[in-house]
């Protein structure tokens, strides 16, 4: 999850033709992956695999780090001490996820600084979901419930992804995500059982976050030409539409339990399919957000860039100090 498929990305990766790879090594690699072996940093891998992974893992890392902002927006206004502590711990976890993932991507031969530079210049993407604003406290509930819920759907299969460091990072991350989802649902439950004003807040949050959450799974399979390759390489283990359906099937009964209405008139249980049918997603909105036209995309990027630029003198100072120390120790 937290990775956004783009048409340009597919082109970029396709530019690295597999035909240029040594066929024997490629065959051995494909066989290992097919046997569910983990590929480790020192192992040989096709360039396209490396590039795809760098993109996917760094996007994922960026999403964790940008994802701190919408929820961070409410830490100082959390309604009681318990909620404040839970939210702080949650947002801190997301920062930790960012760290694991940057470290996993670094094993593929890219530095964190390079990745951050790509994010700030707009070359690297992050999940579309974080370009929507958190307007009320109920949004903190909705994010935990829906966004972390969708993240779990996406991330659980990635624990068995073919690249070892990524898979291991996902194992650690998944452990924490279920707590994130639960705390969000618990907030929604409290609000849905609260005063009229709180109920209104909860419903409004579901209204605003439902469709963007469905978009988190990425474009429909027929517009996701890279999926087959990624599934074959075990970078992806289920398709966007499969995961999206799973999410809807799990989440609708939860909304019912809350007494909230999912904002989709076409939503209906389909006995024959054994799944919920649901309405059409506004893909124009999705691609616009991917292009950077999300409602608060500017705010999010400005905040990231500002933190990074304001922090430059601190990072420089740490480096300068380490160097001075090294020299002093050497002189002794």
């Amino acid at each position, binding site marked *: 999850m937290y990775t956004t498929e783009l048409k340009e990305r597919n082109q970029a990766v396709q530019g690295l033709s597999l035909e240029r790879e040594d066929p024997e090594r490629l065959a051995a690699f494909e066989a290992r992956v097919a046997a569910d072996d983990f590929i480790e940093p020192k192992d040989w891998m096709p360039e396209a695999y490396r590039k795809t992974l760098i993109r996917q893992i760094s996007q994922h890392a960026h999403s964790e*780090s940008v994802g*701190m*902002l919408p929820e*961070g927006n409410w*830490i*100082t*206004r*959390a*309604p*009681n*001490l*318990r*909620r*404040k*502590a839970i939210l*702080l*711990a949650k*947002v*801190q976890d997301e*920062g*930790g996820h*960012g*760290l694991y993932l*940057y470290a996993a991507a670094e094993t593929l031969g890219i530095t964190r600084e390079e990745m951050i530079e790509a994010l700030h210049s707009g070359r690297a993407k992050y999940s579309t979901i974080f370009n929507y604003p958190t307007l009320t*406290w109920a949004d903190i509930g909705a994010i935990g419930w829906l966004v972390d819920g969708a993240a779990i759907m996406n991330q659980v299969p990635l624990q068995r992804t073919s690249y070892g460091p990524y898979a291991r990072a996902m194992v650690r991350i998944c452990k924490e995500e279920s707590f994130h989802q639960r705390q969000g649902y618990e*907030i929604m439950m*409290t609000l849905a059982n*609260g*005063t009229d*004003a*709180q109920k209104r807040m909860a419903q409004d949050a579901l209204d605003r976050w439902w469709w963007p959450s469905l978009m988190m799974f990425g474009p429909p399979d027929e517009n996701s030409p890279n999926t087959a390759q990624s599934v074959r390489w075990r970078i992806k283990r289920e398709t966007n539409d499969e995961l999206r359906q799973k999410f809807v099937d799990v989440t609708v009964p939860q909304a019912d339990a809350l007494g909230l209405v999912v904002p989709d008139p076409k939503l209906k249980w389909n006995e024959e399919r054994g799944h919920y049918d649901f309405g059409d997603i506004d893909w124009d909105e999705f691609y616009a957000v991917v292009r950077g036209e999300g409602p608060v995309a500017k705010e999010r990027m400005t*905040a990231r860039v*500002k*933190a*990074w630029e*304001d*922090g*430059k*003198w*601190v*990072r*420089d*100072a*740490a480096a*300068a*100090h380490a160097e*001075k120390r090294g020299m002093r120790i050497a002189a002794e």
Partner: protein
Amino acid sequence: MLPDATLADYALRLGDDSLVLGQRLSEWCGHAPMLEIDLALSNIALDLIGQASHFLKFAGRAEGRGRDADSFAFRRDALDFRNCLLVEQPNGDFAQTMARQFLFSNWQELLFAQLQHSANDTLADIARKAVKEVAYHAHFANEWMVRLGDGTEESRARTIAGLEWMWRFTGELFERDPALKPLVDAGVAVDVPSLRPDWEDRISRTLAEARLELPKPRRWVMGGRVGHHSEHLGHLLSEMQFLQRAYPGAMW
């Protein structure tokens, strides 16, 4: 437990220090110079908010009027807050934040090291757990003071400015309050003037390592312990207390 207004007041001082600093540090979340610092500052904030919850809960029991930690945190105005002025100072840049942490955590660690032997079991228990946390806070701040003080020209200048901002509020930390005399005499509260030599020793050692000088003596700014705060606290509270004020009586 019999109502004891002095004991409640003492617990509020301890709790409000942690609460207000925790709130301040949480403002950094998502905006720190690098992810590692972000995580560390959130960690410290979490520790402080945890401490605050314990102290404020205990203040409610000592007061005996049915108030819990949240009613103290979210439904008091500035005049009733008992934290020291140092912790409510704005974050400023990272050097200013670290200067505040450095001056405060070194004091709080010494305070809790004594409070863990308090004649009051609850305060002693809270302090025993918290002193380990605060030792880490002080360690983190000391290390950054050294890095920043002995880093670049810019970091050095910023650190001096940060210390300069915060220094005037340190006198309050060691001010003996006659109102607390019964608690000090009973071995419940810590006699804060006694912490000064150790604190000065710690501060000077780290500053020497950071190649910085101790700020010059000056007239202290005080008032936090009697509710006379800086202008900054009201804004901090209006943000922190917004939901509880906007929706009175709601459960969250």
